[in-house]
């Protein structure tokens, strides 16, 4: 029988290649029918370095990385059921939404967007739940 909870390590993001002892966070965890994805800030997928840009460019980085992460784990953007988007300011919601709309098929996932104080000067953090 497969484990009820499984940490997915086969991920294209450089930070996941660090030894598990260095990680306080798993980027993807599978439980039941679902994959739970940690809040992602914009990072360069090769170097793992934070990318600092506009809300739009950070959104593009995050969703590009999310697509790769999910596909590496056997899921995909069109299997996402719920997305939570945290923004440094709700004034930026239209800028995020415009980029966001290009990544998601029809019908898009359920979504909640709110403004919050984000770590490391991130302008956007995106977390989601997908079908495994």
């Amino acid at each position: 029988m497969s484990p009820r909870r499984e940490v997915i390590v086969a991920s294209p993001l450089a930070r996941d290649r660090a030894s598990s002892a260095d990680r306080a966070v798993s980027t993807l965890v599978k439980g039941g029918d679902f994959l739970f994805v940690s809040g992602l800030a914009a990072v360069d997928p090769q170097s793992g370095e934070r990318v600092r840009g506009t809300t739009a460019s950070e959104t593009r980085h995050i969703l590009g990385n999310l697509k790769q992460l999910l596909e590496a784990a056997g899921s995909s953007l069109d299997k996402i059921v719920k997305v939570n988007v945290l923004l440094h300011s709700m004034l930026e919601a239209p800028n995020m939404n415009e980029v966001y709309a290009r990544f998601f098929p029809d019908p898009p996932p359920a979504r909640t967007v709110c403004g919050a104080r984000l770590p490391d000067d991130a302008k956007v953090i995106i977390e989601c739940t997908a079908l495994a």
Partner: protein
Amino acid sequence: MRELIAAPLPGLDLRQHYGHHQSPAIRAGGLIFCSGMLPIDPGTGERRHGTLTSEAHVIFANLKLLLESAGSSLERLVQVHALIYDSIEYDVLNRVYRQYVANGPPARTVWTAQIEAGFKVELDVIAVA
């Protein structure tokens, strides 16, 4: 299997009214994931700004409509994230919240956040299908 739950009334389609790239709710794996629920007039889509209490009444009415259209109900909520604009209103939220989840209330987390369009409260919920 991932299934769209369409807006039961036209006002609840925020994609149509406000261009938000989101579905009202998605059914998957025996659960219903709702998009953040806001105090929107379910008929017209107009924003219904008010006190936290009046906004919460509109939100719960909308949530009831949405969940019941999908064969679920407020009694089947499993998790609620309640976003409020200021933690000073925590007790106010509880007073109105309690009226809608009388028996065996769902798991819940409340936090303060900037909510779209200057609303005072938003509910982000998961229910059993």
